[in-house]
């Protein structure tokens, strides 16, 4: 559907070099990277706000590199929403279809349809400076959807929202994608990427570092940067069994607190929260597994112990604990961790 081929663009303090990416119809593609990695530049290139110095952009096999912003069938929602402060919610949403030959009734019907979809019917008459971040985000989204875009570009859409609003908006974005809308979403938040993406590209300093399915990126980081950026050692595919149990990698049942029922996702166990002991211990931790030390890797803050307990679990311990436990490769040990230290992320 969309292809960026060998894109080069240079600014005074930043450049995007030989950047290529392919997005298929129906994808929810997350571009993951730190601030200043070049994520927003990619969206501005795709939307037509800026033009590359070299390279081509194809949309439905048509070369749109030099198309004006108005000619592209692409909608963009900006990070700061860019909702017009002098227009109320209704007029903001109606903006793309005004002066386009639609009657007043047609415009009203279209606005109501998009407002219903984004659940903002109740604020249509409100002035925009009075709205909360979540409401502004939905107004911006509804306004962009008025274009009936084939591709939706989202610039850090959840970053300014609180946890509750994030969940609501994630569901909305998931539903839009399920209805067939192709989405490119940029973020610095790996949780956001995991919860929504069917494909992820990791970029750093204007370079594409790795791309693929979420499980490929998180399980097999191709570089130290990706590993450090994603920051997760204990990352598994997981399936909901009950509110207290998750099946991990189709192998092990792990006790976890999840309220996202009957779904698949990913499970993460922060390596600093896992406790190693020589014998099974009675404690408040409900996950207790016997395992074998597979490898020991010294790290800046102590030792990184990889334990095979049916699934591979990485445990970070201090040098003091390492000496006290007399750990060595092949030694039988127990690991334990609390259910509330485990994070379950629902998959798109």
């Amino acid at each position, binding site marked *: 559907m969309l292809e960026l081929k060998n894109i080069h663009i240079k600014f005074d303090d930043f450049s995007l070099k030989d950047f290529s990416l392919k997005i298929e119809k129906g994808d929810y593609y997350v571009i993951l990277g730190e601030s200043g990695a070049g994520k927003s530049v990619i969206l501005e290139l795709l939307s037509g706000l800026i033009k590359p110095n070299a390279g081509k952009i194809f949309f439905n096999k048509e070369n749109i590199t030099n198309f004006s912003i*108005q000619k592209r069938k692409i909608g*963009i929602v900006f990070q700061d929403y860019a909702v017009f*402060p002098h227009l109320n919610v209704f007029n903001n949403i109606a903006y793309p279809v005004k002066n386009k030959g639609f009657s007043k009734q047609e415009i009203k019907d279209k606005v109501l349809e998009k407002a219903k979809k984004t659940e903002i019917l109740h604020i249509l008459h409100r002035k925009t400076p009075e709205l909360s971040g979540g409401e502004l985000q939905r107004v911006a989204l509804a306004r962009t959807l008025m274009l009936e875009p084939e591709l939706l570009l989202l610039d850090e859409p959840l970053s300014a929202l609180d946890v509750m609003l994030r969940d609501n908006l994630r569901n909305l974005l998931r539903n839009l994608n399920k209805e067939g809308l192709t989405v490119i979403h940029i973020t610095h938040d790996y949780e956001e990427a995991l919860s929504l993406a069917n494909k992820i590209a990791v970029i750093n300093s204007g370079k594409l570092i790795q791309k693929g399915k979420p499980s490929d990126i998180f399980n097999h980081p191709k570089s130290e940067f990706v590993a450090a950026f994603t920051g997760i050692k204990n990352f598994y595919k997981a399936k909901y069994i009950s509110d207290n149990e998750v099946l991990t990698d189709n192998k092990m049942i792990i006790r976890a607190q999840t309220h996202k029922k009957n779904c698949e996702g990913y499970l993460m166990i922060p390596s600093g929260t896992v406790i190693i002991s020589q014998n099974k211990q009675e404690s408040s931790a409900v996950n207790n597994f016997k395992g074998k030390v597979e490898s020991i890797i010294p790290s800046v803050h102590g030792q990184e112990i990889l334990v095979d307990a049916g699934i591979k679990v990485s445990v970070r311990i201090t040098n003091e604990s390492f000496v006290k436990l007399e750990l060595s490769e092949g030694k039988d040990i127990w690991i334990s961790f609390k259910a509330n230290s485990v994070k379950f992320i629902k998959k798109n």
Partner: protein
Amino acid sequence: MKFNLFHIVFLILSGLVLLFIIGPLVGMFAATAPNELVETVKDTEVRNSIGLTISISMLTTLFFAVISIPFAWLLARKDFFLKKLVLSIIDLPIVIPHTAAGIAILGIISRDSVIGKAADSVGLNFVGHPVGIGLAMAFVSVPFLINAAHDGFKSVPVRLEHAALSLKASPARVFFTISLPLAWRNIVSGLVMMFARGMSEFGAVIIVAYHPMTTPVLIYDRFGSFGLKYARPVSVVFISICILIFILFRLSVNKKKHTGNNKSM
């Protein structure tokens, strides 16, 4: 609010400046008898002069708004070679003596100039003509409009214009529906300043046209011919009208601000 000695000194200094501005005006109003004011208002020459001054200044402001506001947008949004020089040139009329500005305008509209000859060929002479007066007024007052509109456009986030473009609006529609309404308060301030400054211009106008007499020229004429007693009532009437127009403009801008966020639906 707590005041220390430092604040008290500043307050006294501020009061002195305010007194310096208000004092002469209040003195002039106090020294003018009501019957003198009534006589002045009845004076056809004064009424014609005030009408002429206001109408020329208003038309000039409107005409220059059409050509200056797009220029201000360009200055706010685009970078180009010698932009700083262009910005300095805009302020030039403010710093040069206004009589010199009048001489400069006279140079381009007199019968010897290209424009003067062209106008003469269709039976027009801009010297001593309302058009000449308008040009003299505009020359010294248009920087106020350009600078205010420039500040207004600068204060509009570029992101909003980009968002409108991404919503498939043409650049012209973005200008008229986003940039202009959001910069409107600054632009109205600029229009008021240009209008008021043009209306009160004396130095440049008197070089281009002694007749027909604008009110500042009439005040000078009455002062020169009859003295302070005859010039004062005209000044009081003219200042009162200027203040009234200023208040009306301010009220209309505030009203727009309170009713601005929506219509339709």
